[in-house]
């Protein structure tokens, strides 16, 4: 999208790609080398065999040579801008362990626990405001209040508006989750927007992100900019959204090339702050035993620790606080809360491999 945008912009200003040939580009082989290095480690089938285990070093090297390329070409106009973008990109990628946090999955990989993505719809809100049947001036004031999230002013502007629409607009801060879409559909306004959102949810289903993605019609973003689905991601411990964006189908038209577009921005600093604040629970296996099974239990614990598992072991009288093993005279049991079930020798072996029964 940014590439297309810059091409359109350049074209609209009367530029031509041919001018690129006239630029005095030094050491053009460097970006090709960097691309080669990155392809070698990010190959779909995995890194090339001789690079395995050295991916980070190669990745860093590709950035170092790219930096050298920018330095060699610092005389060209605009290179400082490219360099700035390059530095931000490199910082974001390094800080996230080699990943660009670009989706719920990436947020998860970056270690942001409990992140949720809310999907709203700009056209839905606009249709609601239209459906309220306000005078032009009040309509504008209502949209401004909604944009400011000033529901007190909005409420006073909506006196005398059809109760369904009024209630939906005032309930926007809590209009999310599984009931949100059926409620929106029942209103009978903005059916296209509601269909839009259901299609997005359908398309997302195979990705297995239904835990993290929900319809959230209270996501309110710039009305003049966005035309369709809008999104924001939230995580506990971060006071502001981690990312935000949406569909803006009328933007590129202003640059002479009408085409649909979707985009979002990630606030990398907030993502990092959210990562630091979320404690990763230690994966400790708890093992308790009753006296007759003590030796058997401790023998198994020794093997488990040798296999790299973290194990806390103690007599059963202490009681287990988390899921774990209980060695008793009548066998070995897997205890999880109040439920327990017996474990055979095979399951015990599987546990050593790091698999929970």
């Amino acid at each position, binding site marked *: 999208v940014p590439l297309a945008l810059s091409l359109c912009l350049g074209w609209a200003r009367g530029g031509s790609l041919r001018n690129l040939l006239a630029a005095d580009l030094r050491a053009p082989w460097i970006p090709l080398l960097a691309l080669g290095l990155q392809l070698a480690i990010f190959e779909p089938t995995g890194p090339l065999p001789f690079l395995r285990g050295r991916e980070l070093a190669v990745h860093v090297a590709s950035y170092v040579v790219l930096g050298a390329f920018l330095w060699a070409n610092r005389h060209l106009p605009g290179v400082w801008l490219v360099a700035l973008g390059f530095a931000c990109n490199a910082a974001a990628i390094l800080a996230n362990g080699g990943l660009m946090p670009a989706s719920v999955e990436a947020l998860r990989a970056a270690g942001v626990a409990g992140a*949720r993505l809310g999907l709203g719809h700009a056209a839905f809100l606009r249709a609601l405001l239209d459906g309220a049947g306000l005078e032009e001036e009040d309509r504008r004031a209502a949209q401004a209040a909604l944009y400011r*999230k000033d*529901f007190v002013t909005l409420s006073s502007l909506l006196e005398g508006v059809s109760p369904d629409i009024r209630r939906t607009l005032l309930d926007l801060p809590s209009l999310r989750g599984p009931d949100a879409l059926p409620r929106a559909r029942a209103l009978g306004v903005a059916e296209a927007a509601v269909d839009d959102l259901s299609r997005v949810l359908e398309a997302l289903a195979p990705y297995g992100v239904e835990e993290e993605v929900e319809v959230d019609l209270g996501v309110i973003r710039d009305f003049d900019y966005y035309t369709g689905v809008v999104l924001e991601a*939230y995580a506990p411990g971060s*006071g*502001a959204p981690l990312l935000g964006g949406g569909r803006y189908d009328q933007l590129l038209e202003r640059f002479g090339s009408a085409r649909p577009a979707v985009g979002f921005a990630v606030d990398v600093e907030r993502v990092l702050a959210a990562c630091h604040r979320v404690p990763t629970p230690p994966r400790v296996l708890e093992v308790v035993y009753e006296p007759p099974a003590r030796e058997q239990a401790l023998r198994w614990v020794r093997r488990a620790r040798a296999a790299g598992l973290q194990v806390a072991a103690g007599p059963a009288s202490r009681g287990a606080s988390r899921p774990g093993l209980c060695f008793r005279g009548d066998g070995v049991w897997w205890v999880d809360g109040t439920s327990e079930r017996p474990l055979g020798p095979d399951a015990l072996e599987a546990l050593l491999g790091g698999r929970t029964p």
Partner: protein
Amino acid sequence: VSSLTLAVPSGRLLADAVRLLRAAGYRGPEGEDRSLVWLWDELTVIVAKPVDLLTYVERGAADCGVVGKDILLEQAHEVYELVDLGFGFCRGVVALPRERRALWDNPRQHLRIATKYPRVAERFFWEQGRPVEIVELYGSVELAPRVGLSDGILDLVMTGATLQANGLVEVAEVFRSTARLVVNPVSLRTHSDAVSELVRRLSRAREAVR
């Protein structure tokens, strides 16, 4: 059960805010408490300076806050303004020295206005099409015209007594303000049950107080 952090403003709104919370059934130790953090049964209440309060809520240090509409008008912050709590009524007005009030009759008259609300003032004079120079002060705004720092002031009035004591008269009303309940956008989603409960209880208590 997740408990909410609610920021209340120190100063003139504090007593009414606490009264409303108690009327809404929130319980905490009675009596004077000089600490700025109060651990109540269902709430952690923090006492913040009114001008700083929205910063606490916007950044998530507090989930919710009680704040005057005057502050909301002056500062642009990403928070949800959900309930008009009804108390703390006051008005923002432009006032001039009594002997120079005629200056207001000429809309082309350039005025120097001292205020704690520079953005509200800028917006108001711009909308009125009146030329203005804004002198930003942090308090005792009524002093400015008396010592020639400004021609007039834009400030809050409750009874008008302060204006009168300083020889000023109101020439225009700019806004009306009451206390509002604001909520952090992330808390609204991650603590939605507790927030809805707070909204419901405060709205009901406000009706009862009326």
